[in-house]
């Protein structure tokens, strides 16, 4: 790196990014990749971690706007996130270690665009929009259109992710994120699944809406098609969960690598999908399942 600038206003940061400066917040991707020898630090970097307007979580009547530099530690403990958008808190609580979560940010995850990012499936099932700012103005991109490949996004080079915007869920809804992990910390998802389930407010337990997304089984985090059609009008029982697992496995296109084979990932992502749907539906009934689901329903539970 030749130069690091510490931005004190968003306008200053946007002007520098337009000149080709790369943004850094906690550095858990940019700096760690350089330490690990995977890529050099860029020549010109602008630090955005002091911009107060990027670090806020704002509730409105329509939903929640989470600033790009909100850390995983805040996501997993913020009341409005835990209560209303629990899958995102589940995911944030699994990222790295306490030290990673203190400096890692939601905006960094979004722009790094890893297909294994834990916060990805929750953002997809929660219908998030990515807020992009540049000197030219602001635009919102639905998260389903945002990731275009591993490490690739629909953002322009002069755009900075300033926030993610998430609409409120209907009443009687719950969400959850579950991942397969080989160790309990400093882990990257082998596979993962996020789900939202909405139940009939009349209380008969039948599904009125559902969405499901999968982690680390395709070039990007992917939404599972047909999940709402498969579940609406049904109870979340063994037969419904078997259908969830089958849909997930069918739509996964995993690679084989050091960490797992294609076949193993295709099977286990179905298992994670049914666990995520089950946990989301239980939360939709008002049952309290502590964040993260991984520690609460026995996967990698600390004993």
């Amino acid at each position, binding site marked *: 790196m030749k130069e690091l600038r510490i931005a004190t206003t968003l306008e200053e940061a946007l002007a520098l990014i337009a000149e080709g400066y790369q943004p850094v917040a906690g550095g858990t991707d940019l700096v760690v990749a350089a330490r690990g020898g995977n890529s050099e630090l860029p020549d010109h970097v602008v630090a955005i971690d002091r911009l107060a307007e990027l670090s806020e979580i704002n509730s409105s009547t329509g939903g929640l706007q989470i600033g790009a530099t909100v850390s995983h530690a805040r996501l997993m403990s913020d009341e409005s996130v835990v209560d209303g958008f629990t899958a995102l808190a589940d995911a944030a609580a699994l990222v790295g*270690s306490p030290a990673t979560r203190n*400096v890692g940010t939601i905006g960094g995850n979004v722009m790094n665009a890893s297909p294994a990012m834990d916060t990805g499936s929750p953002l997809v099932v929660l219908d998030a929009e990515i807020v992009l700012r540049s000197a030219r103005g602001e635009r919102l991109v639905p998260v389903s259109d945002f990731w275009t490949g591993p490490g690739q996004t629909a953002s322009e080079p002069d755009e900075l992710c300033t926030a993610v915007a998430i609409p409120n869920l209907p009443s009687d809804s719950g969400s959850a994120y579950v991942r397969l992990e080989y160790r309990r910390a400093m882990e990257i998802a082998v596979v993962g699944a996020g789900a939202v389930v909405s139940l009939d407010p009349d209380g008969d337990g039948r599904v009125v809406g559902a969405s499901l997304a999968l982690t680390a089984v395709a070039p990007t985090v992917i939404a599972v098609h047909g999940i709402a059609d498969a579940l609406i009008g049904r109870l979340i029982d063994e037969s419904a969960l078997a259908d969830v697992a089958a849909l997930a496995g069918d739509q996964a296109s995993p690679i084989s690598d050091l960490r797992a084979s294609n076949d193993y990932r295709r099977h286990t992502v179905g298992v994670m999908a049914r666990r995520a749907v089950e946990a989301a539906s239980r939360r939709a009934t008002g049952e309290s399942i502590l964040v993260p689901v991984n520690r609460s329903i026995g996967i990698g539970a600390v004993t």
Partner: protein
Amino acid sequence: MTHEFELQVNGIAHPVDVDPSRSLLSVIRDEIGLTGTKEGCDDCECGACMVLLDGQPVNSCSYLAAQAEGRSVTTIEGIMNGDELAEIQKDMLDEGGVQCGFCTPGMIISATALFARNPDPTKDEIQIGLSGNLCRCTGYGRILEAMKHTAANRD
């Protein structure tokens, strides 16, 4: 171009003028001369380099030193109560939580942050608090015993 700034470590402001790529760890060790903070993996995996940044644990190997300007850095050298070891340091010695000692400063930094936000942690909470710190000697048993002893004896 070098980056000139002031780095506050253990309550003392140090003027620093370094390459902006330099990690917080390398500046603490090689510019300021505090070598209690260790370089293990230099890749954000092992936690030997853990310091407190405004009271929160951070892997200093992968944090740009210049981003710590205006923030308060605490290293293992800043943990003692004057000339006395902190309780957690005494308990690590008494319980045999130290073998080669390389992970020990990072372990104690993580534990210090844990106890500051949670004065009476459960065993699960201690394990999560230490989950970014690797030890290749002890098998963790005696380190956990030391932490549980510290937790049990806090007011």
